[in-house]
């Protein structure tokens, strides 16, 4: 399922992004220098930004045609890990990870049980009851990853999800992402070891998508 096709153009401040991209199912690694437009590409697919021209289709459905058609984020089948984590400060670590299930009508006990499994996956089962602000930056990032992995969606968008990970946990977290249940995964990374693991690889440079090759 979930292919992503985008052709068009978007302008945000100094950045002008020219896109002509077709992504199939699998793990796609996105690399490029800071400010090249990697995050903008993810934000466009997520629906936090709009195209100025062209269109974006997810799984064959046009979700943005730079005109009338615009499907808002919550109606796109996506999950997102932000570079700055964005955990809900008023919820416990467990409730942060249970949040996607709760919003899909899952009862509190069942949502908590599932969230506990995801927290165990990222090695934070013992921090379930505390607030995210009491965690280290690396731990916060793992909670953000757990929350996205807990989100039932076709597309998983990851913006440097391991940037704050320590060397001990990095390997296990990487495997977790590679084995994510989401059919299409876009992973922005600076780490060459991560970049080697994808099925596909894109390099973004100065707002232009340079390659889209199968390894």
């Amino acid at each position, binding site marked *: 399922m979930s292919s992503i096709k985008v052709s068009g153009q978007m302008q945000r401040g100094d950045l002008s992004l020219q896109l002509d991209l077709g992504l199939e199912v699998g793990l796609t690694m996105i690399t490029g220098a800071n400010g090249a437009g990697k995050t903008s590409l993810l934000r466009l697919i997520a629906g936090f930004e709009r195209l100025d021209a062209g269109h974006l289709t997810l799984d064959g459905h046009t979700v943005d045609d730079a005109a009338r058609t615009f499907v808002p984020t919550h109606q796109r089948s996506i999950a997102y890990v932000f570079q700055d984590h964005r955990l809900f400060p*008023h919820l416990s670590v467990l409730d942060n990870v249970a949040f996607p299930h709760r919003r899909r009508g899952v009862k509190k006990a069942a949502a908590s049980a599932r969230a506990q499994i995801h927290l165990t996956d990222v090695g934070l089962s013992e921090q379930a009851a505390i607030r995210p602000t009491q965690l280290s930056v690396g731990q916060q990032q793992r909670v953000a990853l757990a929350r996205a992995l807990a989100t039932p969606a076709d597309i998983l968008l990851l913006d440097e999800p391991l940037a704050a990970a320590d060397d001990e946990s990095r390997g296990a977290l990487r495997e977790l992402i590679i084995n994510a249940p989401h059919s299409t995964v876009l992973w922005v990374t600076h780490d060459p070891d991560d970049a080697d693991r994808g099925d596909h690889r894109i390099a973004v440079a100065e707002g232009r998508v340079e390659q889209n090759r199968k390894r």
Partner: protein
Amino acid sequence: MTTPRRTIPRPLILPAVLAVALLVLPVFGLLLEAPWSSLIERLTSEAVLDAMRVSLVVSASAAALCLALGLPLAWVLANSERRGIGVMRAFVLLPMVLPPVVGGTALLFALGRRGFFGEWLDWGVGITLPFTTAGAIVAATFVALPFFVTTLESSLREQGTNLDEAAAAVGSSPWATFVHVTLPTQRGAIAAGLALSWARALGEFGATITFAGSLGGRTRTLPLETFLALESDPESAVAISVLLLAVSLTVLIALRGKWFAR
């Protein structure tokens, strides 16, 4: 290492002291003149108790209306970039700078029995606002709403859209995000907005007397009772003033973390 204290330019000292005196002296005057021995007695007279009841009903209802109407409006002002938002914000701020008696007059001409909207309310729906408790609530809400809306709007702007995006990114609808993210993270601002708008509603005089009159037990709030008592029983007027002063100070102290960083 600490930064050295800034030297105050001498010409500023005297006016600053005078300004503080202007603000502090009346409070001392009130406290010196207060009939302390008969305070409880005066505050529990029938007329004052009636006014207290009216004031509580009116100010609490106005604060509740500010929450119910002002929170949605604050969200729209903070998040929408549609045309006309600037004009809307100007209207929200208007009651802050408008003389309350002008507000009351405007309410009378809009919602009074002969007013263009009041006539419809009166005949069509059977609701009469002028010179009723409901009218006093409308007048108090009119003057208090800007305090709630501006408090919430600036807090929402400060929080930004990061958490809204995070919620949307895991499938939360805008309404669910409002209920489960915005409301709980804005609890402090909501409490501050409620306290401010409630205090403003409690002190409301001009719009109330113009639009709702001063009917004992129905629209005569504590400020109106104070004004009335000044003629016949000045000591009771002072007693009520001391009570209202105590309430205002309590609100200020409760909000100190919000406005007084130091």
